[in-house]
């Protein structure tokens, strides 16, 4: 964060905050034709900080590219974010604060809880669309969440991609799900069981671990008894996956271990140490270092940031890009920037090239982008390598 542009923006935010502190001052509403505002409840701290910091940078970088290139029809997108520490009430507070100071058209939310909490408020305001860090299955319902979307597959779709891959690799395989006892962890489990059945896979064990647990010895014993061919972890960032995998390997288990998006960052997988080799998982975007095929956007990112950028960064970047595209399409159609119009603009995206960030052209008919690819960790290269083609659901 050495960018002077950035500092000025943050100074601006500070000044706005100062203004907000003086009671009685109604927020200064931006006039039409002024900046378009992307607000954000970002988990810069707390348990989700590892992703939040990347998301924050990704959004900033994409908007910098956009604004440096003249913005959208001459209008820039201004990013106003607040830290939430991954707490719902703090996220709501940030939302209220930002929307009381700015005329917000786009919003980034940090958790499933927040996305659900704020949804009625989004509908009531009708002035913005929202996306965020949650890929919860529940949110992938345009009827219940008409003004939200996610820049990737929902968790059930991620499982679907994994299971489809498994079914292809080893028909009739035995699969185990290991997930945390949280909303995040439980989200895709029930529907994915049904998907597994359709694909003629047998789910031999479902293991719930309490959130934040350290000792998983008993769970590993349980897993060994079930003896699955594939084990899918969900609802974790890192712990307790490494210990789980390490103990299982020591016991001589041959199961293939897999994860979903938020465990798939290169540095996260690397931190699994010896257990990392061969770890697989589903990922909707290309990795930072992916040089296969043409991806001009990744080139640009690599120019801006010579060092590795996390999956969270890519997620933030892509989300901002899709939001900007929705704005562009709405303005092109000569419509006002309302929530409904923006969502319509977003849903009009068809076979859209994200500059190679998604490996294939994408369409957003509903609330999600059900595309992904299986990657496998290569311990020698210390990188995730593609293990499958792009899978579209």
């Amino acid at each position: 964060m050495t960018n002077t542009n950035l500092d000025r923006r943050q100074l601006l935010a500070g000044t706005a905050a100062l203004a907000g502190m003086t009671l009685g001052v109604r927020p200064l509403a931006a006039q039409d034709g002024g900046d378009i505002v992307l607000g954000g409840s970002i988990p810069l701290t707390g348990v989700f900080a590892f992703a939040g910091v990347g998301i924050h940078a990704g959004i900033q970088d994409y908007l910098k590219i956009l604004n440096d290139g003249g913005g959208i029809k001459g209008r820039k997108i201004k990013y106003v974010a607040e830290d939430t520490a991954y707490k719902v009430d703090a996220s709501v507070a940030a939302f209220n604060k930002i929307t009381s100071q700015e005329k917000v058209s786009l919003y980034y939310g940090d958790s499933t809880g927040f996305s659900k909490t704020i949804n009625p408020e989004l509908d009531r305001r009708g002035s913005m669309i929202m996306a965020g860090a949650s890929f919860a299955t529940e949110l992938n319902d345009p009827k219940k969440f008409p003004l939200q979307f996610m820049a990737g597959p929902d968790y059930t779709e991620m499982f679907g991609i994994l299971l489809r891959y498994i079914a292809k690799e080893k028909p009739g395989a035995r699969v185990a799900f290991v997930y945390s006892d949280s909303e995040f962890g439980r989200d895709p489990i029930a529907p994915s069981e049904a998907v597994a059945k359709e694909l003629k896979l047998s789910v031999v064990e479902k293991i719930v671990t309490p959130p934040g647990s350290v000792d998983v010895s008993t769970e590993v014993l349980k897993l060994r008894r079930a003896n699955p061919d594939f084990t899918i972890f969900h609802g974790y960032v890192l712990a307790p996956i490494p210990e789980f995998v390490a103990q299982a390997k020591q016991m001589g288990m041959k199961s293939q271990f897999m994860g979903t998006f938020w465990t798939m960052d290169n540095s996260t997988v690397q931190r699994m140490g010896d257990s990392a080799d061969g770890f697989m998982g589903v990922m909707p975007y290309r990795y930072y270092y992916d040089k296969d095929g043409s991806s001009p956007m990744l080139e640009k990112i690599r120019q801006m940031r010579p060092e590795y950028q996390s999956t969270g960064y890519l997620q933030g970047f892509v989300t901002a890009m899709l939001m900007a595209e929705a704005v562009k399409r709405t303005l092109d159609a000569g419509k006002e920037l309302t929530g409904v119009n923006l969502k319509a603009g977003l849903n009009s995206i068809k076979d859209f090239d994200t500059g190679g960030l998604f490996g294939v052209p994408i369409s957003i008919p509903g609330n999600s982008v059900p595309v992904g690819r299986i990657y496998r960790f290569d311990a020698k290269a210390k990188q995730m390598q593609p293990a499958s083609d792009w899978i579209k659901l």
Partner: protein
Amino acid sequence: MDTLFLAEVTLAGLGAGALYALTGVAFVLIYKATRVVNLAIGEILMLGGYAFLGFAAGLGLSPWLALPLAIAAGGALGWLVERALIRPMLGESPISVFMVTIGLGSILAGVVQLGWGADPLRLPEFMPSTPVFIGEAYLAPKVAIGFVAAAVVIGLFLALFRFSRGGVALKATAADQGAAYSVGIDVPRVFSVAWILACATAAGAGVLIGAIGGISPTMGVFGLSVLVVVIIGGLDSIAGALVGGLLIGLVEALAGAFLGGEFKLVVTFALLLVLLMVRPYGLFGTHEIERL
């Protein structure tokens, strides 16, 4: 197969229980000497893990040097905390002191997060990873090592209390601070030593636990399970911590294996409630006589 599974689960439970017992002993030590319920024990344990990481990964020292250093750092922290926070609270209500330790826990968690970030981290591998088999039953090597280490330390403590002069001083202080003072026991020093020993033990336990499951600023919640252990065993009983630790470890493992992971915490706390109704001062705790 099922008896084998049961045996394996039991072993795993006892292994985890030994670490509970070890931390529980640290807790009891402080309570016995100073009558302070130290809820920050989980965070001190966490700090031990981070100190180890700092010495081993940060400074690049050998793990076998980093381990004693981390334990010493824990002891130093104990000394500092006792001097700076606990001694000024002497004579205040136990609730106030209890809340001070809660505040301390929060400060420590924040400091660690400021220094190392919020992400979970892994400690450098320094334990052998060849699996241990007892009969046919598998036991994770780290858990086995944790068990042995905990057993040795607790054994040492028990011997220390029984046979050393310091142990007598501790017992006297525990029984009656005023009387101990008047017969020439340096009570403030007993306080200091108890805190140093306890925090050093907790830091060591932190390294063991960190080696098993990794470390994170939120691993202080381990202290909550330890609290259950010492309440069940009795706040002022080392033997109680031992029995309570193994019991809770076992119950958690069995609940996890046969009911599911989400039942672990709730089963132990339900057990705690039932026990409190029957034995309000734990299995081995001293019942205090009330006076008008």
